[in-house]
């Protein structure tokens, strides 16, 4: 693998398993080329991004604030001055 153009399956597999930064320049280039031509893969990639954003957003509102949490933990560990 890695030579020439990548197919959709391999693009989808790469986008879901490895960090973009860890890819070689050649690999990045062939993925970019593929994405440029393939609307399905573009949509797939967009959805991966939307998924991560949605997860971060979902858990950004938490039941107690960080300060309150720290205070409780310190107290429970008997470290509260």
């Amino acid at each position, binding site marked *: 693998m890695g030579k020439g153009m990548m197919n959709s399956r391999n693009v989808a597999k790469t986008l*879901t398993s490895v960090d973009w930064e860890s890819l070689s320049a050649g690999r990045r280039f062939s993925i970019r080329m593929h994405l440029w031509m393939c609307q399905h*893969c573009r949509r797939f990639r967009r959805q991966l991004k*939307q998924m991560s954003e949605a997860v971060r957003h*979902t858990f950004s509102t938490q039941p*107690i604030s960080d300060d309150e949490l720290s205070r409780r*933990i310190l107290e429970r560990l008997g470290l509260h001055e």
Partner: protein
Amino acid sequence: MLPEYSWLVDPAIGKVNLEKLKRRDPEALTAAIEEHAGFLYRASLGMGFNDTEAEDLVQDVFRVFLESLDRFEGRSHLRTWLFGILHRKAMERRREQYREEQHDSIDSVFESRFDRKGRWLRPPQDLDQLFASQEIGHSITHCLEGLPASQREVFILREMEELETQEICKILEVSLTNMSVLLHRAKIRLRECLEALGWGKA
């Protein structure tokens, strides 16, 4: 990252402060808790624990941390060390075997979307409306429930906590290859679930 706590993230920078921690200096311990408790708590919620369980877990992590401080040599980041404890404590609570399955049904689901030449046979559906809707939070929570614990944890550490892949491997004590498989399966499973929910909304 807050500059005044940078020594906590990379203890090698300030041996003095690591020493302070080891002496259980209250100020250093407080700083460590204030810096990391929130991240550990959010990760626990993301991993599927409720708010009480998550708080107990974070307390457990710091209790174990205090007990094991003497073994902490500062070679790994404090954060990695803490998340490693969280991982082990979470496993204990779930009493679930943590293993990467050789065969996972999601693999054939993934493959079934492509033809033999790797072209889309069943392309992804349009999910923009689902992602823009109010229900997305519920959908995400619901679909995360369907993930095996190991896949869910990798996904949360990578996508929510945005930890480096190398760091995640250290925390979970898995190889980079195993971690990639878990992450791939998690993302595919989550996307498939969201697509099933979003079906017909477009």
